[in-house]
């Protein structure tokens, strides 16, 4: 856990750090942060409960969850498989990962809502081919000290001299590169245009 790492601010062009493998498809946000930890009015402290129930179950089965492995403490790049973050729209899931120290996610695919929440926090979730997700997971499991380098300019992930092509929807990529991932500022730029749309929608005035 690295609660002292500053949260993202401004443009996100690259993320470099050690990797953490989180294998398995369809990892839902109830697993990432169980609902009982949503019973709060702040996000602070969520990092302590990332994957809490999965971690306990692994422990009970005599196994060690990736988030509990000593060698992965301080990791910054989570390596996942398909449909990561499906289910509940709770932003608490990317918040918990971010506050734990994760600064980028590399994997096959993401649920749309999770992806949007992560963009809004400055946490890039890039897609790579399934075979690339596999070797990256194998690499970081076998060599936890290896540095993964995600470059959003060249859209690639590099580790140990090997390179994988990464992809992001162009809007999200642009938002990271320009620092406009916190969309509120953009959405407030043109209030007259918002008014105009509201005026031409008949339901807003009750027909």
């Amino acid at each position, binding site marked *: 856990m690295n609660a002292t790492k500053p949260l993202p601010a401004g443009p996100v062009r690259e993320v470099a750090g050690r990797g953490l493998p989180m294998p*398995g*498809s*369809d990892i*839902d946000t*109830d*697993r990432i942060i*169980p*609902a*009982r930890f*949503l*019973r*709060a*009015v*702040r*996000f602070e402290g969520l990092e302590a409960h990332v994957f809490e*129930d*999965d971690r*306990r*179950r692994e422990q009970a089965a005599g196994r060690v969850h990736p988030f509990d492995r000593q060698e992965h403490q301080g990791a910054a790049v989570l390596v996942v498989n*398909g*449909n990561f973050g*499906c*289910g*509940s*729209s*709770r*932003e*608490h899931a990317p918040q918990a990962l971010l506050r734990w120290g994760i600064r980028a996610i590399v994997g096959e*695919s*993401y*649920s*749309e*809502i999770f992806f*949007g*929440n992560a963009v*809004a926090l400055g946490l890039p979730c890039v897609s790579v081919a399934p075979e690339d997700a596999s070797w990256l997971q194998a690499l970081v499991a076998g060599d936890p000290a290896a540095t993964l380098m995600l470059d959003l300019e060249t859209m690639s992930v590099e580790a140990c001299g090997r390179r994988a092509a990464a992809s992001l929807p162009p*809007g*999200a990529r*642009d*938002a990271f590169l*320009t620092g*406009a991932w*916190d*969309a*509120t500022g*953009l*959405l*407030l730029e*043109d*209030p007259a*245009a*918002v008014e105009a*749309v*509201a005026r031409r*929608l*008949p*339901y*807003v005035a*009750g*027909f």
Partner: protein
Amino acid sequence: MGCTLLRKVWDRHTVRRLPTGQTQLFIGLHLVHEVTSPQAFDALRARGWPVRFPHRTFATVDHIAPTRDITRPFADLLAEEMMAALERNCRDFGIPLWPLGDARQGIVHVIGPELGLTQPGMTNACGDSHTSTHGAFGAVGFGIGTSQVRDVLASQCLALDPLVVRRIRVTGTLAPGVYAKDVILAIIGRLGVKGGVGYAYEYAGPVVERMTMEERLTICNMSIEGGARVGYVNPDETTFAYLRGRPFAPAGDAFDRAAAWWREQASDPDAAYDDEVELDGSALEPVVTWGVHPGQSVGVGGRIPAPGEVPDAERDATREALEFMGFEAGAPIRGTRIDVAFIGSCTNGRLSDLREAARVVAGQRLATHVRGLVVPGSQAVREAAEREGLHDTFLAAGFEWRGAGCSMCLGMNPDKLQGREVSASSSNRNFRGRQGSPTGRTLLMSPAMVAAAAVAGEVVDVRQVLAGASAR
């Protein structure tokens, strides 16, 4: 070439193209609840921003709502803190709030429709993934997280990438005992839990066209479980008839003007779709999930699959799911013993759901080892059910009759599974730990199937129960 409803609504709500290439989309209706909003209101406060369109914003309490004792302060102090924060935020920012005890309180996705807030051709947003529910009216609903709740509060807009549309036509006729829940579980079973990512699902075909609004709400509700953030049904006479006379629906001449506009929002007959799928509704049987996501399901006459029988890509997930559930590959799903029966949620907590469940349990008793809970989706559903005497039927059968809220769908209030309990549930997610116990297990099915399982103490085929009841 004609246009889909999604495209029409998208274009009519587009404010501008953002420098990032995303679309700035106007949101017509924002529903707010206690769990995903406090940090958003704090962000507005920190920057001195008002809520941009408070008259398009409505709040209620559902996720943490105690369903037994709603006396304030709540016995649960965390729930009390969240409730107090919502009250303060709504007061400070001028947003109407329907608190516990109010006749209009309930699950956001139940009250939006029943109050007539949700209307065709509208965009909706809510800090909850089941916002797809509102698509039943031909609205386009987006489930969002807290940062986007902040965006909508501050600007009434979202920054979004466009979606493509898959039309899913359900043909034929559903057999008695087969419900909207079975249709959507079958769709997810076929297309997968990530099959809908990037798509809006348009549900169509004779089965959907004949459905009531409450059935359409059930289908659209679970779009997100199939990966589709948005799901919708084209508005038609059923939609307009449902809306007429609702508190927030237009009245008099305005209703006729509205209906004319609503009709125009439907997909054109010659609209082009990015993908089309057809499902034979006549072939469907009641569906039950056996695993840890809503795509892991079988017909009630089927068997739990073995890892060797599924496609390679699903093998590990199947093995893991079987291990978590403690189920044996190859075992029939029928006969699976249950401990808890939960009837409720934004998927199946409406009046017609309670009626179908009550029809099954009438004159019966819960199996002695089963704990049964009926949690109406809203206070209005509860009152309507009581006027019909449904609560008497449930109470006589041994069910608990509770107040409105999300309850055991996600266990954020005191209603939770205990330990390894197996729940037959009319809710939407069978994820590990979803119903409040980290090791608890959930079998998703229709409310009538839950009722039948509650009486039998194990999974049974509600079609046989209904056939037996009509023979008696």
